[in-house]
């Protein structure tokens, strides 16, 4: 596994906190003046290595924007994102983003939009090696890709020869997970990984992610509006509302005994199987 370069610009020792990814005062404001919208409002949180957490929120809560900032795809208006204690801006300046992306990867929501429809699956998978400073020889690259595809339960020869539009949503999403396996990051951010997939295929993707986490030890951050999915997969939950974290804690505690009014309302509004849904 490739480790991100260590950094200690501010003297903080990540090993002491155990936090692999953290945010301090993270803020994102869109627009300016009268039309400024605060999408993310001074978020503070810490995620320990190996945890599975979920950032839960409805649309407009700022969760997707947070995810993009964590990934380095969007610059925060204020505040910092720290990876193993070093803030992203420093990492970017010193080593460029490629190093960061070897350690932090993502799976996105829309399996139909995640793959470039003009190129074959093989090309997309092999592309991930652009992240590595020294690319291994072609044969080895192909072998790693094949192994990754096999690990996610897809028929390697069948899938490699195809173009994205010939695969189902569930298969494509598995492919996206396989892609991250080739990279072997330390953190995987999954932004609504199953919302566009049928219920019967959802479990497969989630279980793959959880199995991989058990095997390789990576940290998983789910970003979702689906509380049920978040509860099933995650150890800790962060409930976001209007750009802030209104409640956080162990998944069980939050589901059984939500403290914040918004969390309570959110849980009450979800149709479940046993509990009466009061309309």
């Amino acid at each position, binding site marked *: 596994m490739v480790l991100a370069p260590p950094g200690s610009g501010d003297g903080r020792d990540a090993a002491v906190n155990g936090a692999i990814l953290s945010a301090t005062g993270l803020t994102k404001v869109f627009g300016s003046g009268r039309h400024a919208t605060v999408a993310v409002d001074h978020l503070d949180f810490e995620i320990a290595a190996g945890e599975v957490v979920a950032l839960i929120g409805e649309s407009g809560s700022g969760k997707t924007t947070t995810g993009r900032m964590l*990934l*380095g*795809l969007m610059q925060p208006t204020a505040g910092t994102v720290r990876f193993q204690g070093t803030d992203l801006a420093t990492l970017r300046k010193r080593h460029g*983003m*490629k190093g960061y*992306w070897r350690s932090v*990867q*993502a799976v*996105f*929501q*829309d399996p139909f*939009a*995640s*793959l*470039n429809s*003009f*190129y074959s699956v093989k090309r997309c998978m092999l*592309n*991930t090696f*652009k*992240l590595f400073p020294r690319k291994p020889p072609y044969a080895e690259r192909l072998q790693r890709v094949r192994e990754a595809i096999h690990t996610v339960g897809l028929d390697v020869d069948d899938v490699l020869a195809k173009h994205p539009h010939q695969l189902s949503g569930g298969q494509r999403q598995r492919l*996206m997970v396989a*892609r991250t396996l080739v990279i072997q990051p330390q953190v995987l951010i999954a932004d609504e990984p199953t919302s566009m997939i049928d219920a019967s295929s959802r479990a497969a993707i989630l279980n793959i992610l959880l199995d991989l986490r058990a095997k390789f030890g990576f940290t998983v951050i789910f970003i979702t509006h689906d509380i049920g999915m978040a509860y099933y997969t995650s150890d800790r939950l962060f409930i976001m509302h209007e750009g802030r974290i209104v409640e956080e804690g162990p998944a069980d505690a939050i589901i059984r005994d939500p403290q914040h009014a918004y969390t309570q309302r959110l849980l009450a509004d979800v149709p479940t199987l046993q509990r009466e849904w009061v309309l």
Partner: protein
Amino acid sequence: MELIRILLRSSRFVTGFGIIASVLAFALLGPTLLTDVGPFQRVGGLFDPPSSDALLGTDNFGRDVFTQLMYGTRTSLFIGLVAGFVATAIGVAIGTLAGYFSGVIEEALMGLTNVLITIPPIVVLILLSVAVDTRTATTMGVIIGVTAWPWTARAVRAQTSSLRTREHVDIARISGVGSLEMMLVEILPYMFSYIFMAFILQLTGGILAEATLSMLGLGPFQTVSLGTMLHWSLLWESVRVGAWWAFVPATIFLSISSFSLILMNAGMDEIFNPTLRHTR
């Protein structure tokens, strides 16, 4: 190929393509197959009416109009092609750069584009044509292309801006794909159908721009084009004299060339834009 089969289903595309292909065949093969005189050869007197010798009569210099039509169409199409290519290339380059990088680069490029759009192209065309000494068909095509790219740039910028937010672009970015490759591989292919149609429109515009310039006397030297034919026919008052063969054929050819290209485009738009398809 699947695409071609689908395109052949559109009656507009087939009709348009058929017409322009015929025009092209006429222009390219005509000189060898249909005539045995040159476009500058004197075959008769001033404005001779159509006869068995000269199917469309003669122009003011006594040259065979029918032959001129062939060579003229060839030149006009060629200039249109050069103009189309230049305009599309510049427009796509600027539009993609502006749309992809946004920020300062976008502001600068779009600012330039917007200023150029407001300048009437005919003015620039005239000024450039006068300033440039050589007046070959290629030069004309380049000049026309260089004044016609702004609207393509704007449209391409808008498309790039929206494509940039797509997830496969994000995935490519976190895979370490560099900017140039991003634009060429992740964004451009998605705009291909649009770019092709824009090219066809630029081609059409180029043909008509050439006609305009030539009619003003700024046409290519020592070449016959549809525009120069019209230029001479106007100069020598063919309309007043009633020598319709001197201006009607060229006009018709200009019209059907543009019309058929636009029809072809409409057909392609139907295919690339499923919402426009007729229910069969």
